[in-house]
């Protein structure tokens, strides 16, 4: 790729970003005067950080003059956010942040962009509904959700009770969500249920019991996980279901067949009623532990550990643009999240439908704004919003002769 074309492409993007920031699109975090800000420019190089902005106007002036590719702020509040070292900043507390990216989804590489965005959204919804609002009891008002602008979502928790949690304690929350360090004794154990005496010898019969589905915390959660697993299992074709059952410890082909028969006989409701009241008698006692492991696997959530435990990390500013996609970092309520489609809803209104010419070295198939685009290698005329996405991704350059079309923003 020619240096000149690259230059022209960057100029185009910079001026588009500058135009965008003229519309006052930013959603500043509360207490933003106490936050550190950071930027990455299109020219590359280091993160410009250790910057503080006492007023909204100064921040806008800075952003408009630099037209940065990425804008971040600290999750933390500082006495002096602009101080050059962490020690001098004086940490006062930090929002609790969760970051869920497509690469936490098993098999994401094979999903394609729209597929992975959908899958990650499902995980985010579960993270919020089951864990953050569910078990941890945060109110929706204390929770800000944002599309990250690329492949995932961020959740900012602004409940003052969590501000002063330190790294170790934040990691405990992550462990809670990801099912790490669970004491398996708590969620299932063999217990005696009957004594039998044969010819003077007493034998204690044991069975595997799991907690009630309504028990608080991971006890109930694991049971619900087992129940959900069995439910999906009963919807599979017989062969696959039996194959899955055979993965359990102590379950051979005959046993699997028998369990499958029992599950069918009990039906979904019958199975659920038993499992959710702690009964697993239709499984051999030896398989209990592996069933519990299945349940945990099914019930656990996902989130990126380092992002949550690092109390000094920078996070993308809501309403800013992501320089690797051109999408905006869209703030969302839990309700808005359900219908949110990044490939349409994160495209700034400012980007035109008018076509511009770009050069794409490789063939590209992609969806955007409800349309599928099929681009051959070479020169292509595409709507500006797609051109911006491709140029930001580094998959396209502005075709020569186009550079003059963009009006240079203030520098």
């Amino acid at each position: 790729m020619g240096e000149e074309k690259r230059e022209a492409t960057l100029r185009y993007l910079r001026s588009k970003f500058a135009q965008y920031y003229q519309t006052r699109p930013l959603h500043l975090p509360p207490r933003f005067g106490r936050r550190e800000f950071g930027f990455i420019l299109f020219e590359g190089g280091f993160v410009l950080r250790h910057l503080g902005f006492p007023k909204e106007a100064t921040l806008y002036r800075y952003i408009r003059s630099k037209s940065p590719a990425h804008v971040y702020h600290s999750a933390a509040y500082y006495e002096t956010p602009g101080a050059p070292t962490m020690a001098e900043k004086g940490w006062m507390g930090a929002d609790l942040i969760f970051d869920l990216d497509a690469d936490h989804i098993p098999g994401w590489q094979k999903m394609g962009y729209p597929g992975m965005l959908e899958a990650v959204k499902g995980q985010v919804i579960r993270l919020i509904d089951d864990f953050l609002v569910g078990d941890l009891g945060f109110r929706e008002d204390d929770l800000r959700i944002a599309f990250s602008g690329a492949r995932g979502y961020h959740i900012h928790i602004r409940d003052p009770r969590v501000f002063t949690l330190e790294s170790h304690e934040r990691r405990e929350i992550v462990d809670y969500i990801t099912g790490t360090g669970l004491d398996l004794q708590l969620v299932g154990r063999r217990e005696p249920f009957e004594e039998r005496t044969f010819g003077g010898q007493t034998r204690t019969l044991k069975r595997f019991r799991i907690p009630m589905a309504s028990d608080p915390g991971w006890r109930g959660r694991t049971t619900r996980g087992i129940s959900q697993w069995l439910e999906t299992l009963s919807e599979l074709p017989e062969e696959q279901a039996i194959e899955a059952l055979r993965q359990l410890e102590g379950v051979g082909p005959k046993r699997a067949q028998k369990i499958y028969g029992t599950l069918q006989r009990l039906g979904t409701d019958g199975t659920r009623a038993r499992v959710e009241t702690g009964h697993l008698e239709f499984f051999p006692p030896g398989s209990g532990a592996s069933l519990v492991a299945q349940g945990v696997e099914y019930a656990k959530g996902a989130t990126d550990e380092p992002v949550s435990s690092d109390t000094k990390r920078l996070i993308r500013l809501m309403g800013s643009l992501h320089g690797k996609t051109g999408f905006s970092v869209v703030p969302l309520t839990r309700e808005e999240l359900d219908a949110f489609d990044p490939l349409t809803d994160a495209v700034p209104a400012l980007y035109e439908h008018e076509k511009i010419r770009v050069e794409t070295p490789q063939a590209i198939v992609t969806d955007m704004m409800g349309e599928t685009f099929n681009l051959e290698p070479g020169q292509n005329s595409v709507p500006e919003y797609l051109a911006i996405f491709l140029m930001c991704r580094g998959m396209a350059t502005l075709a020569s002769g186009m550079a003059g079309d963009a009006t240079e923003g203030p520098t």
Partner: protein
Amino acid sequence: MLAMYPFLAEASRYIRDQGLSLEEVLDHRAFQGARNWARERVFTSLETGDLPNPPLSRSAECLEALYAYPLARILVSCVGDGFLVRRFALAEADLARRRLSRESDDFLLAASHALGLDALRDGAFRLHFSDFLRATRQLRGKEWKLINQPVREGFVLLSRDRFLRVVEGHLRNRFEAELPLEVNPTLLRAFEEEVIELHTALRDRRSRLQGEDLGTIRVTNFPPCMEKLLATVLASENVSHPGRFALVSFMNNIGLGFDEIYQIFASVPDFRESVTRYQIEHITGQISGTVYTAPECSTMKSYGICPGPDRLCETITHPLSYYRKKTRMSGTAKKAPADRPAKAAS
């Protein structure tokens, strides 16, 4: 009542309302008892950690107890030693728990509110998980992990006993964070004798633990990583899980048995949690029969517990080889002391 819980805001308000400065109290003959008591408290917290809990019946006793608390804190602050602060915080929090354990549920709940905890009671005690996390910061057993708690709507359900332990943890954190207080020359002078005594006691204690010989084992031959881990444990600061594992397995590998290792750790204030008996049993093979080998240098580095190699480190890849090499070298060093590897660098 206030005399039993002198850390409550009400108690300090009461003292403030008396209008006596601490300097005056220290000078005053009438407060000699409180002063003795304060002294007693600090020394006991350093030695056994088991503070006496006498019944307070006469009002004079109550008054003394009430004043003993701030005086003890001043004394600890005059010494200004981190280890003493932690011992003192631990002992005071432990005493508070023992006292609270005799109170009614209502009182316990009210006290936890006065301490700023977001707690409720309906059958069991319930504590907001953020307070639970902060208060159990120093408790590292899996029974204190958040994931193993019954959490519902943001609150952790706790039995009365566990709730008391959590309140204790909260108090311990608070005492540690508050101390040392600022002290002025008048106070320093008033406690001059005690401060000297405490410094001596602290020094004795350290040299006892860091003495050349641990039986047949020489701590001076430890590689920097293990030396540092041991020092950290002995200073009763938190050591990461991999760090504890590395240290215990290392000590086991160089010939210390379960009992000896246990004894070393038992001298740490919050031994209960910092390295559990179970962990030592496990690592030394008491439970499963598997004896673990200490991790090699590259692993130590990736855990971030290699404090940066010294010169001898550059010739080895395993902390155990360091120890063996150095033991051999110091054996010959008796004849030629100049051969001793330069330890002064660290």
